[in-house]
């Protein structure tokens, strides 16, 4: 968190007619930082990415990339960023090498350095064998990699990736995530996604956007606190009565789920896992599954947004 400031986003807003897609969003990103931009569909993620990448002008506010204003000095600002939109901007009729050479030229790399830049980008994205293949014939995962290669070919300080792992198989997702972490060492990366594990795995900072407004801007550790689940999912072969479980210290509520599992809510500080296991073996309940209740992004999100609402209401009264 000590690197130089790469991008400063100041109070940007963007309206589509009456609808505010993004409202008064501000944040900064530093070198060596991977910033996760979370939000459900339609929350304004892509609009924000488009504004930062210069594809869309904000109605109000400023974007500074590496100290250059994106509207007043677009050439210098855009030279400092690489952007992978939601659907990679690929020319299907070109080969990977031709395409990357074109991107290198567009980003004003000197002619002598283009070949080296292309090879380095291909190496990073695992494309060394695909150079002479037509982009249109590549699989979705490889096309996505070409998209990432395109965004980093000129080694920009800031890399913006909009949902880079959508539509990939699990192995490809792992590879892309590893690549993002790798990029995060030297560059600043803004990663837009709606997949929570992705953020937990690769990001240093998390932002949640909801209805065009930032509702959370915190480090990954902070998010983990938000997510600390106060529930357990358990399954028994010979389940005891609910009232037996409810008497276990710390358990506040027992709820049966449709598939026969039980959902136990407990006080945040008092995890009853050990007690349950002890009792289960003692009474022969046949415990065969116990795990912390999974909190989905949706739940964190609902929690956050409702809390925001409640806080606002409290502040108003």
């Amino acid at each position, binding site marked *: 968190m000590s690197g130089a400031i790469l991008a400063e986003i100041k109070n940007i807003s963007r309206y*589509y007619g009456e609808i505010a897609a993004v409202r008064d969003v501000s944040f900064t990103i530093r070198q060596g930082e991977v910033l996760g931009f979370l939000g459900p569909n339609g929350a304004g993620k892509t609009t924000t990415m*488009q504004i930062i*990448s*210069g*594809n*869309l*002008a904000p109605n109000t506010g400023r974007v500074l990339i590496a100290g250059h204003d994106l509207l007043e000095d*677009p*050439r*210098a600002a*855009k*030279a400092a*960023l*690489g*952007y992978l*939109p*939601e*659907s990679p*901007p*690929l*020319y*299907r*009729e*070109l080969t990977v090498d*031709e395409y990357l050479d*074109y*991107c290198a*030229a*567009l*980003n*004003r790399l000197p002619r002598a350095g283009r070949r080296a830049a292309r090879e380095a980008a291909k190496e990073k994205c695992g494309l060394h064998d695909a150079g002479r293949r037509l982009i249109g014939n590549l699989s979705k995962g490889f096309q996505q990699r070409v998209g990432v290669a*395109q965004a980093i070919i000129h080694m920009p300080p800031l890399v913006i990736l909009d949902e880079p792992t959508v539509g990939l198989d699990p192995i490809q997702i792992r590879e892309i995530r590893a690549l993002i972490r790798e990029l995060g060492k030297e560059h600043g990366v803004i990663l837009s996604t709606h997949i929570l594990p992705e953020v937990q795995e690769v990001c240093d900072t998390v932002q949640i956007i909801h209805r065009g407004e930032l509702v959370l801007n915190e480090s990954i550790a902070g998010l983990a606190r938000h997510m600390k689940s106060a529930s357990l999912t358990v399954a028994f072969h010979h389940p005891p009565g609910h009232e037996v479980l409810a008497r276990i210290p710390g358990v506040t509520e027992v709820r049966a789920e449709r598939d026969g599992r039980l959902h136990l809510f407990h006080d945040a500080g008092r995890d009853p896992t050990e007690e349950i296991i002890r009792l289960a073996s003692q009474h022969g309940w046949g415990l065969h599954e116990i795990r912390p209740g999974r909190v989905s992004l949706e739940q964190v999100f609902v929690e956050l947004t409702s809390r925001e609402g409640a806080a606002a209401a409290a502040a108003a009264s």
Partner: protein
Amino acid sequence: MIGTIAMRELRALFLSPLAWTILAVVQLILAFLFLGRVELVQISQSQLLAIENAPGTTAIVLPDLLGNAAIILLLVTPLLTMRLVSEERRNRTLSLLFSAPVSMTEIILGKYVGIMLFLLLLLALIALMPLSLLLGGGLDAGLLVSGLLGLALLLAGFAAVGLFLSTMTQHPPVAAVGAFGALLLFWVLDWSGQGVAGGGVLAALSMFNHYKPFLDGVFDSADAAYHLLLVTTFLALSILRLDAERLGG
């Protein structure tokens, strides 16, 4: 930078069968018309000899050939220009250009130069036909140069209008129909205005009126200025349109 974009545009044209088909079809039709005209010269040679101050072969063959070429290219140019921006918008590749350190002007000029290189190649192929007459006789070089220059200026206008219409939509066929309609309108502008007040203005705007003098070997700088003005106007409109896409929405 303009060169980079232009070369990609040219390459994309030749990677699709469309460009090849257009080159072949245009060449075939024009060759047919050209041969017909040459035959006419051959048949009526004896009669021509009898006339004092008879028109030369060039004067008989060339204006007719280039006049036909203009009409065929009016039909064909929209097919070449329709994809320029609309297809990039449709395939969402425009953001590659928008997030690169390239200005809107460079994007538009690059695309325009690319399509113009193709059209000039087409023009060169057409020029080969009258030039082949050199094998059997002389040519009026002045008339040839003036005619080809006229056609080149006309094509520059066609391409600029086509490019502008392509920035307006994300459906290439819509861009093609729009460009075709606009060009046809510019072409026939003086037909209806005759005898009516204001007809003179319409006639002055008509593309055809500014093309015909070139075919007769008359180079009027006003005609050239008309075409250059047309090109500049539509290129400027294209740049504004692309810019508006970023600002508006």
